[in-house]
């Protein structure tokens, strides 16, 4: 099975082409560049270098969030359009799982974190079980100060990975010896890992309905729903005219 993997959830961009047996190629960029400018040229180069036509793939695996709203929309739109237009399988993988899979320890709880600003994080907790990466505490948007006590209560050794730099002092202070921070090399998402996770996942049944996992409503919608819990006949939101 030939998989094209796409992740533009945060600042880094990573794409890979991989078969069951091996990685054919991976491009990872960690530079200041919009993903709209960077993604399609990277994909184009991968196929050229591998001397493959787009239709040669069997599946598109995409990191579907959480992450930067614009970033996950570019990856998801590109991935779902490719899968639809080429009539190939599509799988969505948590962007947090992609980072978590960089930590190979089987003894520890792996805690990927993305900075969601205002002392909040996109995060979750993962564990390797029989060679599979399993989500043990679901992905969420939460204040770091509320998340750390929950993790400590598991009594398990923790390894934080991802955008840990801004939070490392707080993590060390609150978690002490129970926590480790993964080395810098593990913090970037890797297309190869996403391709591998994507090979194991179940394909999406309805490609059209596939959307990013934002984990947060927009502020406008949250305010609206607070004041209008019954939504007052505004559905369907989108109609063909």
């Amino acid at each position: 099975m030939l998989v094209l993997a796409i992740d533009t959830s945060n600042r880094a961009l990573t794409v890979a082409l991989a078969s069951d047996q091996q990685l054919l190629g991976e491009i990872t960029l960690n530079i200041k560049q919009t993903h709209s400018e960077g993604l399609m040229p990277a994909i184009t180069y991968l196929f050229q270098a591998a001397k493959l036509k787009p239709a040669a793939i069997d599946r598109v695996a995409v990191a579907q969030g959480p992450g930067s709203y614009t970033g996950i929309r570019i990856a998801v739109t590109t991935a779902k359009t490719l899968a639809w237009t080429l009539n190939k399988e599509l799988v969505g993988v948590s962007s947090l799982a992609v980072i978590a899979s960089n930590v190979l320890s089987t003894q520890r709880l792996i805690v990927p974190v993305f900075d969601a600003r205002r002392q909040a994080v996109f995060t979750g907790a993962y564990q390797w079980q029989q060679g599979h990466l399993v989500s043990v505490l679901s992905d969420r948007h939460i204040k770091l100060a509320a998340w750390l006590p929950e993790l400590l209560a598991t009594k398990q050794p923790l390894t934080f990975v991802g955008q840990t730099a801004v939070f490392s002092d707080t993590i060390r202070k609150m978690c002490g010896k129970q926590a480790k921070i993964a080395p810098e090399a593990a913090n970037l998402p890797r297309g190869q890992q996403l391709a591998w996770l994507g090979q194991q996942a179940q394909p999406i049944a309805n490609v059209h309905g596939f959307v990013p996992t934002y984990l947060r409503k927009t502020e406008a919608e949250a305010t609206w729903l607070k004041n209008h819990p019954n939504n007052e006949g505004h559905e369907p939101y989108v109609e063909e005219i």
Partner: protein
Amino acid sequence: MQENSSQTRELILAFESSCDETSVAVIENGEKILANVIASQINSQKRFGGVVPEVASRHHVEQITLCAEEAMTQAHVTYADLTAVAVTYGPGLVGALLIGVSAAKAIAFAHQLPLIPVNHMAGHVYAARLVKPLTYPLIALLVSGGHTELVYMRTAGQFEIIGDTRDDAAGEAFDKVGRVLGLAYPAGGKIDHLASQGQDSFHFPRAMIKEANYDFSFSGLKSAFINTVHNAQQRGEALSHADLAASFQASVIDVIVTKTLRAVKQYGVQQLIMAGGVAANSGLRDRFRQEIAQRDLELDFVVPPLRLCGDNGAMIGAAAHVLYAQGVRGDAHLNADPSLSFPYLAANTTK
């Protein structure tokens, strides 16, 4: 003109997602609509009294492949039939634009098709091409919630701005005034309807009507309107909403029609195109027709049907046909350009 001479018909798959409509069309030879699927978010955006960009972007992701599939099905075409893929890359909301751009680039890559980036405003002008052939030079009046522009075209595919709004777009003024009158977003149609039942009794200012340029300003009118309503409220006096709407609309129409027809005369054009959401306003359409008849102008006034006046993929496909012939191509790097604009016509080149 065509890269493949054996091809008998040119088919362009066109994407539009610059604001709150997701639209995909299939256009034959730049003039025939084979499909023009439009998904409107109006029900959703109504909740907020205007378009919330992040909400718009989210809806576009939900709709984009659905619209594309329906357009291809309605048009009875396959990818092998397509000549090129076109997409609006600006101006507009950046997050919204990026969905169309990402999808169009993916399809162009997947099927090795040329990609044609299209300026949204060029699309509005070329909506008229779906009605009849264009005769150059011409002037296009583009009036919508985001724009109020007078565009001069010497020839096909060449756009120069001769006038623009200095503050609010005309449609924006309609929506803000509508809010003051307690009308639901979008208020344009409701104000138009109210205005038809009232009289211009408040005599709001006609901003910049006499100035020797083709620019517009609607924020002073909006303020005058709001002050009138608030002062009456403080006095406990009830004003006729129909008269308020009629007075507001009369001011907008007076300025737009006067300045547009002055430009038509100065530039000596024989065709005037009006497009954009506000082109749906019946008062504005009627006044143009009256003035053109009264002044006995030899002017072909073209207003595309309502469905083509608002945002849609068909107009992007029509504009792309012209750009394609001129060799305009995008590549894998194509990005959204939210503040994309036509160049201004240099003042000293005016006739």
